């Protein structure tokens, strides 16, 4: 069964078209990540799915029912927000229970489900506290708990980790991944962070300017990007793009090489000088200005003694390189 099907979804605010002809399916139990730069429409798309915005045209189908005219509460979804959005006047327990009370579930069911969520998220010590007495990570866990108790057909996450610090972000990311395994529920996750997208997703949807650029598994997109945008967006440090390539490329085209596919050699096709060195311990990033005045990043594994100002020569395997035409679409090598 498909958890979600979007057919020809458009959304405009007045003159401005924010979403242009979105077609998408999410299979049951799939973890789908919407990723793209800010302003690409990913959050709007999530809001359209949630029913917080109406689609200007097209249909939204959740779990087999067309829900265009169904209010958010009756769509069988639950949402986790970037700012947590906990009710400030309610305790942790009541925050989780409110949605079920609105559905007029019997008391025993409410208690049982809240108990289960509290246990799953390790919140037992905080159930009677107010959100203002909790830390950011705890608040986000409560928000996730509020989503779990509703037992939705589809979970929606709107940049849930953006307000957390780096260490907590990593832990919560793992918790969300575990949650997905335990519940085997369908989830849609919006982020602008490509690391979150790569690490969490079964399927990544790359969006730009309200259009879907490419859909696929993380490794498919990484190894086989459809265009220059996708190639540049996924991967860190991001892909190098060279206009003056040492290979035959289309007119006004671009050659793309990932930083880890470049290696320092005594005699290579690219010559340049090191302008900056980032030593991360595990690997070393070199920023290089080529003789053609283009900037490159080289990712070397392990530690490396190269210093700023050194002249180096670089080379790569042809099959690891990507070629893009003047329209930034992928072209054959």
């Amino acid at each position, binding site marked *: 069964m498909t958890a979600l099907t979007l057919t020809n979804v458009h959304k405009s605010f007045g003159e401005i078209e924010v979403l242009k002809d979105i077609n998408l399916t999410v299979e049951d139990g799939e973890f789908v990540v919407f990723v793209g730069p800010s302003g690409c429409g990913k959050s709007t798309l999530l809001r359209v799915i949630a029913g917080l915005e109406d689609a200007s045209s097209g249909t939204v189908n959740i779990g087999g029912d067309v829900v265009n005219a169904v209010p958010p509460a009756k769509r069988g979804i639950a949402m986790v927000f970037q700012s947590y*959005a906990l009710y400030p*006047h309610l305790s942790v327990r009541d925050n989780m229970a409110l949605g079920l009370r609105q559905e007029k579930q019997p008391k025993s069911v409410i208690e049982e489900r809240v108990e289960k969520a509290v246990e799953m998220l390790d919140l037992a010590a905080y159930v009677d506290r107010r959100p203002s007495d909790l830390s950011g990570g705890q608040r986000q866990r409560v928000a996730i708990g509020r989503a779990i108790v509703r037992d939705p057909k589809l979970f929606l996450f709107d940049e849930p980790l953006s307000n957390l610090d780096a260490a907590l972000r990593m832990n919560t990311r793992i918790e969300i991944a575990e949650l997905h395994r335990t519940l085997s529920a369908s989830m849609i996750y919006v982020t602008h962070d490509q690391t979150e997208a790569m690490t969490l997703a079964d399927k990544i949807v790359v969006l730009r300017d309200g259009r879907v650029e490419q859909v696929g598994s993380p490794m498919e997109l990484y190894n086989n990007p459809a265009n220059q945008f996708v190639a540049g967006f996924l991967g860190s440090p991001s892909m190098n793009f060279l206009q003056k390539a040492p290979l035959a490329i289309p007119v006004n085209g671009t050659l793309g090489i990932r930083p880890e596919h470049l290696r320092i050699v005594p005699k290579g096709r690219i010559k340049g000088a090191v302008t900056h060195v980032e030593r991360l311990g595990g690997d070393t990033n070199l920023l290089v200005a080529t003789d053609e005045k283009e900037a490159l990043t080289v990712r070397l594994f392990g530690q490396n003694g190269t210093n700023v100002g050194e002249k180096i020569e670089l080379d790569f395997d042809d099959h690891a390189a990507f070629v893009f035409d003047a329209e930034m679409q992928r072209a054959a090598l």
Partner: protein
Amino acid sequence: MNAARKNPFNTYAAHGALILYTLIALFPVFVIVINSFKTRKAIFREPLALPNSDSFSLIGYETVLKQGDFFLYFQNSMIVTVGSLFFILLFGAMAAFALAEYRFKGNLIMGLYLALGIMIPIRIGTVAILEMMVQTGLVNTLWALILVYTAQGLPLAVFILSEFMRQVSDDLKNAGRIDGLSEYRIFFRLVLPLVRPAMATVAVFNMIPIWNDLWFPLILAPAEEVKTLTLGSQVFIGQFVTDWNAVLSALSLAILPVMALYVIFSRQLIRGITSGAVK
């Protein structure tokens, strides 16, 4: 914390300026209160002297309290002020929520139209208002005053509250919608508690002019049984003889209820004014 704030001289200067301002602001009130406890002769002999055993007299208060309707005036003022504040806050907050929250055609125009009332004094329309009140039979009722004051207070209330409501997190309202709360519950349970400081600010701004107003009570509700306190106090001011003891005593008494209301709102008011500065 910067150097200017740590410097003790600056602290003293700031406190000095504030104390000076407080003295200036409180001086007229002080003069009214001390003179209300003096005999008529003492008031004119030495207006700035404190009451002593010779000059002390409660004659003003006795006159005021003997004038049997005084408690009625009090009650009328209270009903009008509290009633108007209630409607200003209720309707103001509702309109502000609609303007801040919903996208609809003419949203901006509607907002500007409502804000127009801030610039045009309602008293310009007094004649028309009086005619309207006469036709609807509301003259000499407290409702006439409550309606006029509500109309007078709404523009500023909508203006201030919609600004605050725009700051309430969208996520919170959306979370409520996903949990199945109705728009009314979102408004009353989620949004209103968060804009409480702004509501208190609006309440205080409106309360004092309404309580002190003489114009509309005089024109719309001059009958004995609906007189407000300020209008009631005027009986002691005659064209040829003014009973200063009674006037000053009445004014001193009139200060008390607004002060009580102010104390109730002030904690929230201070939070409202400083919320932008200290967050």
